[in-house]
């Protein structure tokens, strides 16, 4: 399955290897791992909309396939309580040549940030605080809209 929403951690090495295992046509694998920044938080809780989350991610992956020549795509997003340094998200893409893999990986992350129904709540010394959406994420996503 190319999309997973799960509480459990994932193995970056295993996931990256699986993108090209047994595929002689794969010439490039690009991946991204997002982490919990721990500068001023104790923990972070990720809430999501079960059902819609998986659909939104599958739709983003399908769009990436129409834009670039991709071989395999893997998206994993964790939910629940995470600690500083924990992995949150994995996006991996394999393709014949590097350009498609690099671009698709970035596109999927940009769209995930603005279209997939996840919400972060930070646990800070001052109490719980919902993370505000950032305008820079919207502009990062909008650059693909042409």
């Amino acid at each position, binding site marked *: 399955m190319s999309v997973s929403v799960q509480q459990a951690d994932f193995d970056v090495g295993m996931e990256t290897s699986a993108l090209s295992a047994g595929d002689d046509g794969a010439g490039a694998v690009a991946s991204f791992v*997002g982490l919990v920044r721990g500068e001023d938080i104790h923990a972070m809780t*990720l*809430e*999501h*909309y079960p*059902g*819609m989350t998986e*659909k939104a991610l599958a739709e983003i992956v399908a769009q990436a396939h129409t834009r670039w020549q991709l071989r395999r795509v893997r998206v994993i*997003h964790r939910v629940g309580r995470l600690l500083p340094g924990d992995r*949150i*998200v994995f996006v991996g893409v394999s393709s014949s040549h590097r350009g498609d893999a690099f671009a698709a990986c970035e596109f999927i*992350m940009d769209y*995930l*940030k*603005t*279209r*997939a*129904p*996840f*919400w*972060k*709540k930070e646990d800070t010394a001052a109490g719980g605080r*919902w*993370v*505000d*959406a*950032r305008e820079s*994420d919207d502009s990062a996503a909008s650059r693909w809209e042409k």
Partner: protein
Amino acid sequence: MTIKLLYFASLRERLGTPGESLELPAGVDSIAALRGHLAARGGDWQVFATSTSLRAAVNQAMAGPEAGVKAGDEVAFFPPVTGG
């Protein structure tokens, strides 16, 4: 004529409920009309009238204010997403 309503994240906390089953009143046939109906409850529910950032989904797909709402639909309201 009922719909399933879901609220997420800061909106869920503010309203004090993750969702409800709602008998759809006559004339409430769009996201905009539904927001007006919920805002009329007053108190914290006025966020449906005052918030410009609130997002909506109908049957698990993002939906604008003009999107239709009909019996049996699953309608969700939530703040802008912050995953990744």
